[in-house]
């Protein structure tokens, strides 16, 4: 029996970002997967050290454009721990609202992408039409559709005025109705069920072993959500459910996300009702005191961790992030084994991969000798350019 290798990527129709998989196949069946990361690696952690603390917010926002709000929230929470200040209550609720709007947009986006991966283009078009309602809300609050730049060290920048609240509630009502409809589509549509049920199974034990996070873990019946485990801002004052499914397959991951969208809509409504008038930020000194701090936030894709260290200078001494897609890649490789080539798009999409998040770290490949894809010339040119020697 001979295996053959199919490289997919880095430019491919399924995922927008550059990423390469080497599939080892036995006929149609996947035997092994070798992912190759690093195409979108930009060196953001080092870049953080070149920027002031405030400029760091803008770079943190551009680690990932889809889950930009959790990134800035997490960075600001960590820096606020350095200052040891408490953010005003209204700012905490505003942070919850903007985080949950981000989650709604990210999950709806993902449902559309799943439809596209399954060849169900109609679903993609419908979901992306409805997603524009969230984008309109974010634009109304902050003036920008995707990156609201809402958080600052010590609070938030933009307030929600009383005139905005009826518009937000009206759009949320519309979204709730549509999301319920998409839930019924995912539950009942025979073509979706045929492509997703019992595909890409990740058992509860495996999910725990491989440290899966976010909806990927929750679809394998692992109760893990930072909003419950370690409530930040004021999530402990809000009543909502932790969604888990025990089907462990792609369908379960889709259902977790749909149900979470409904929960997020209810969280935004509660936060709007609980919000009292007051200040939205506190003034802080330009440079935080010496120390180090971490913060955890539940991003749409899972647990996000930011670490910052200050040595009393104008720029951070060190900044480090751990993002959810990176944590889910071992699980993804496990899920793919034993399924067919045709299942690849659905399974890869099911962890909601976001390589922009993942690739700010240097990925040291332990099997570099056998996996390295660069030709010798490319490697040589790179090293010469890097050290400034003429090519």
């Amino acid at each position: 029996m001979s295996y053959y290798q199919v490289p997919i990527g880095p430019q491919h129709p399924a995922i927008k970002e550059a990423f390469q998989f080497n599939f080892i196949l036995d006929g149609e069946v996947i035997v092994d997967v070798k992912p190759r990361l690093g195409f979108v690696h930009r060196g953001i952690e080092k870049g953080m050290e070149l920027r002031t603390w405030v400029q760091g917010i803008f770079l943190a926002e551009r680690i990932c454009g889809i889950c930009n709000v959790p990134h800035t929230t997490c960075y600001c929470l960590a820096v606020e721990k350095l200052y040891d200040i408490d953010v005003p209550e209204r700012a905490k609720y505003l942070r919850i609202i903007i985080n949950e709007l981000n989650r709604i947009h990210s999950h709806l986006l993902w449902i559309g992408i799943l439809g596209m991966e399954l060849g169900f283009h109609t679903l993609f078009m419908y979901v992306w039409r409805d997603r524009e309602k969230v984008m309109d809300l974010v634009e109304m609050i902050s003036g920008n559709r995707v990156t609201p730049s809402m958080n600052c060290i010590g609070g938030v920048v933009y307030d929600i005025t009383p005139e905005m609240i009826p518009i937000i509630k009206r759009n949320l009502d519309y979204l709730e109705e549509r999301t319920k409809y998409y839930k019924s589509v995912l539950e009942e549509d025979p073509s979706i069920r045929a492509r997703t049920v019992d595909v890409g199974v990740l058992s509860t034990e495996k999910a725990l072993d491989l440290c899966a996070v976010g909806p990927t873990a929750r679809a394998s019946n692992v109760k893990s959500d930072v909003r419950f485990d370690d409530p930040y801002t004021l999530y402990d004052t809000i009543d909502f459910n932790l969604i888990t499914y025990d089907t462990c397959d792609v369908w379960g991951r889709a259902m977790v996300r749909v149900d979470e969208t409904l929960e997020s809509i209810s969280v935004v409504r509660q936060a709007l009702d609980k919000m009292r008038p007051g200040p939205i930020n506190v003034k802080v000194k330009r440079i935080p005191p010496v120390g180090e701090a971490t913060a955890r936030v539940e991003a749409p894709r899972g647990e996000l961790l930011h670490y910052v260290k200050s040595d009393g200078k104008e720029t951070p001494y060190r900044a480090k992030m751990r993002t959810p897609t990176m944590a889910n890649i071992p699980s993804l490789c496990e899920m793919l084994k034993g399924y067919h080539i045709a299942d690849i798009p659905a399974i890869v999409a099911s962890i909601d991969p976001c390589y922009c998040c993942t690739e700010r770290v240097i990925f040291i490949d332990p099997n570099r000798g056998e996996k390295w894809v660069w030709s010798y010339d490319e490697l040589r040119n790179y090293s010469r350019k890097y050290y400034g020697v003429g090519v």
Partner: protein
Amino acid sequence: MPSILAWSRIRSPWILYMCTGACNACDIEVLAALAPKYDVERFGILLKGSPRHADVLIVTGAVSRQVAPRLKRIYEQMPDPKFVIAAGTCATSGGVYWGCYNVLGGIDKVIPVTMYVPGCPVRPEAVIDAVAKLIAKLKSG
């Protein structure tokens, strides 16, 4: 024969789309331009998976050192005449990633660019504007 080619190119430019190190925000905005609210498909634009089918390459993001040779190869695989749209501030100049060691800068460091669309992230309206201007440019020859 050449007039049929030119006519079909104006009526239906096919696009290929590549992320060279963007933060994903431009990517979802370019995709939103293809979705129903903005709908660039009314200009006959179709998203394609292969560089060999494409007339227009839309690139988002600053070019990282790793992806630069791939970008060049994809550009070379496209049939002539080919057009490149740099979508977003990062694709135009490197943008917010100044000083990051693995970022080369704008995509014009690697391949020639027909049109720059600034914005962080680029708005779907700006993408539509760029496409309309590109089609006008094709019409005028």
